């Protein structure tokens, strides 16, 4: 009896400690991601986490070619643009069904668009629709022509509208689903994509499963799970022991180890991103008509909640730029997985101004400037520190601490403020911060998607801001608008270069780095392609 018990005990212990665990035979891919999503409505999110889930659930009228920013048909089979460039007619794909069984048709398309721009739309109240203001302010309306034909009407010609249409913001959602869940629709996403939503366990994981009725071939994966493992090392551990089959943002300190491991493969691509620290210059506007543009007459500048006297002074902002040794941060904290940034967009993009000379690391000069601005003894300032790692910023708390130490050297005391990612975005959009760490990954590869979204005065609207320094320079905005209105690339480049100079001089941002995108997969996972836009499409992925 006793010996039997002992054997059973031994067996249990053996089983429990067996490293093998459950074999990953099935078509399940668990992806270790750094943070949880803020919501699952494609039109109502801005963070990569949420977008990357939705890329697999939803589809838009058009989509990007894999690994590039070229457009190809998706839910629209073809389209025609009117001569003046203000009307585009889309012919929709027939026989597509949403995950809930609803038919995809013109009504669904109109619904997905109209709820964002039409304030009288019954579903308008359930979202903030933050991207609409950035990218689609030129859209007037979407009209149904017949069941499978729609017409997009623009207020004025916009060269980048087709790439914008490949964005998640205008993915088509199921109207019946939205009706069913109303304000909770964001928790119950329903699209036409290759994967269906199964469950979202907050702070833990999101499970998707293959859409059996997908209009293309069914995905190779049966199940796709996004598991939140916020700690990069724990994430790598989980990959190494086979808990997950792929991870994002590995700890740069671990890259050598990853390369040495035959069981793993490292994917690296230059990132279309920028990581920065923004300093709140103090003023924004309230976009009352929600047109995404600051109407100079009716929408005056008001103090942001995070208004902080010293940061309103250019000398101070320049001093802060001078006080931080970016090279050291890039070398030691990014560990060489990034290049030092001096401008607000990556160097390979159109209009990048390489002539600009970056602020050097010069604490002495910084102190002088501070004294000149009237703060010889420095001041205390609050820094919003991101709780999650992003492609453009690895381990923000560490970078925050580095900045804290550098600024301490010139007499500025930095206090940290940390909240969860969703709230973080919310609060920074509202301008609650004095300084914040943030960054940007391009959506469509157009410089406008950096310059206008991040640095334009129109993006200073309190509550939906993208310009986190609240750099409200209208001259600059005019340059950016002009760049968008013309199709002449040289002209555009010139406008952007000029704008970058102004931005550099104003010093509202400390640009830290443009980092490479690093992803690690088990070596038996094939087919994943890193996109410049940092969007994750798992449809082509195969586990062998």
């Amino acid at each position, binding site marked *: 009896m006793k010996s039997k018990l002992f054997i059973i005990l031994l067996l249990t212990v053996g089983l429990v400690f067996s490293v093998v665990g459950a074999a990953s035979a099935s078509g399940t891919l668990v992806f270790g991601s750094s943070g949880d999503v803020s919501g699952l409505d494609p039109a109502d999110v801005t963070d990569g986490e949420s977008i990357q889930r939705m890329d697999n659930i939803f589809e838009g009228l058009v989509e990007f070619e894999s690994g590039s920013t070229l457009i190809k048909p998706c839910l629209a089979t073809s389209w025609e643009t009117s001569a003046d460039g203000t009307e585009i007619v889309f012919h929709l794909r027939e026989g597509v069904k949403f995950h809930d069984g609803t038919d995809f048709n013109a009504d669904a398309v109109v619904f997905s668009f109209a709820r964002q721009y039409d304030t009288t739309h019954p579903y308008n109240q359930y979202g903030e629709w933050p991207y609409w203001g950035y990218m689609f302010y030129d859209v007037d309306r979407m009209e149904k022509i017949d069941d499978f034909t729609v017409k997009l009407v623009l207020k004025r010609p916009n060269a980048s509208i087709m790439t914008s249409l490949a964005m998640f913001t205008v993915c088509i959602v199921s109207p019946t689903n939205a009706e069913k869940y109303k304000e909770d629709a964001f928790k119950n996403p329903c699209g036409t994509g290759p994967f269906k939503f199964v469950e979202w366990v907050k702070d833990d994981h999101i499970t998707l499963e293959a859409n059996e009725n997908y209009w293309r071939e069914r995905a190779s994966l049966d199940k796709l799970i996004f598991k939140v493992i916020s*700690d990069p*090392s724990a994430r790598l551990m989980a990959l190494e022991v086979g808990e997950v089959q792929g991870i994002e943002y590995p*700890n740069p*300190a671990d890259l050598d*180890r990853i390369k040495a491991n035959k069981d793993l493969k490292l994917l690296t691509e230059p990132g279309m991103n920028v990581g920065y620290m923004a300093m709140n210059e103090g003023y924004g506007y309230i976009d009352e008509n929600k047109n995404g543009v600051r109407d100079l007459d009716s929408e005056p500048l008001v103090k942001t909640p995070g208004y902080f006297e010293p940061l309103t002074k250019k000398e101070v902002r320049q001093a802060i730029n001078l006080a931080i040794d970016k090279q050291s941060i890039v070398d030691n904290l990014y560990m060489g997985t990034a290049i030092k940034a001096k401008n607000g967009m990556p160097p390979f993009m159109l209009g990048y101004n390489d002539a600009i000379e970056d602020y050097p690391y010069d*604490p002495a000069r910084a102190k002088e400037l501070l004294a000149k601005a009237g703060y010889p003894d420095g001041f205390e300032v609050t820094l919003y520190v991101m709780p999650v790692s992003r492609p453009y910023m690895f381990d923000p*708390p560490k970078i925050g*601490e*580095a900045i804290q*130490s550098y600024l301490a050297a010139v007499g500025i005391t930095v206090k940290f403020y940390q909240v969860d990612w969703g709230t973080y975005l919310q609060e920074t959009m509202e301008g609650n911060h004095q300084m914040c760490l943030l960054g940007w990954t391009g959506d469509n590869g157009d410089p406008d998607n950096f310059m206008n979204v991040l640095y334009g005065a129109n993006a200073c609207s309190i509550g939906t801001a993208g310009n986190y320094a609240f750099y409200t320079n209208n001259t600059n905005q005019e340059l950016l608008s002009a760049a968008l209105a013309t199709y002449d690339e040289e002209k555009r480049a010139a406008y952007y270069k000029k704008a970058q100079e102004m931005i550099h001089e104003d010093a509202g941002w400390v640009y830290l780095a443009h980092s490479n995108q690093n992803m690690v997969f088990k070596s038996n996972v094939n087919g994943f392609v890193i996109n410049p836009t940092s969007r994750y499409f798992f449809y082509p992925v195969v586990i062998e």
Partner: protein
Amino acid sequence: MKRTRETKTHELVRRLKYNKSAVFGLAIVVILILCAIFANYIAPNSPTPSPPELFKALKPGFWSEDKVEGMPLGADAMGRCILSRILYGARVSLTAGFVAVGIAMILGITFGTLSGYYGGWVDALIMRIVDIMFAFPALLLAIVIVTVLGQGLDKAMIAIGIVYTPQMARIIRSSVLYIKEMEYIEVQKAIGSSDARIIFRHVLPNSIAPVIVYGTLMLASAILDCAALGFLGLGAQPPTPEWGAMLSKSYSYIVSGAWWAATFPGIAILFSVIGLNLLGDGLRDILDPRLKT
């Protein structure tokens, strides 16, 4: 009696000598206090160098070929000397502990004495409040208080002080209840001493033993709880070299092989708490056998 006369202090010292573990505990505590006082003399580096020496980030200490000079215990993720941060951390932790326990003592002694000495509705009221506070795990209560007060080391100290107050109040109360029943207190009533005189001249001096004993033990848990709050990011904020906060910043690097950043601050906490526990246990054995549980 032929034996030489022995005062209480002599007796205490003699009994302390027999209690080896208490002596050991005392030694640790003394070392800890010395570290705290002289941190700026003995620490090889600044705990928060500014500008930072990022190039030293996560470099190992004396045990490795790759060691970073002048940092015997290696460097943390920010390239700061772990040993120096631990030494300065002693200052932070001890201060936090003493302040928290001090708050608990002042409040606890006041309420405990009132409750125990006067009894009746005063006692009932205070004890009900104590019961309610006891319905929360200490750390949770501290967290709740921090939620209201806001994060930071100063707030954490206050929170822990408040959290420990009911415990101290109960100890004092039971001690007062016990002493109150002693005949030498009854004599005071027979003589006609005033309540204040009885409390300050007789009751409190005789409650010193449990106060010292539990104060010491409480100091140990205050340091632990303070570190716990720091670990959760609710206590000391960066770049304060607080042991718990150091841990929370460093433990993600153990996978990358930088075990030292997470190991040493923990050992510092462990040893200071062991020291205080040993000392407290020893003092309990020596001062007041009645307190043994």
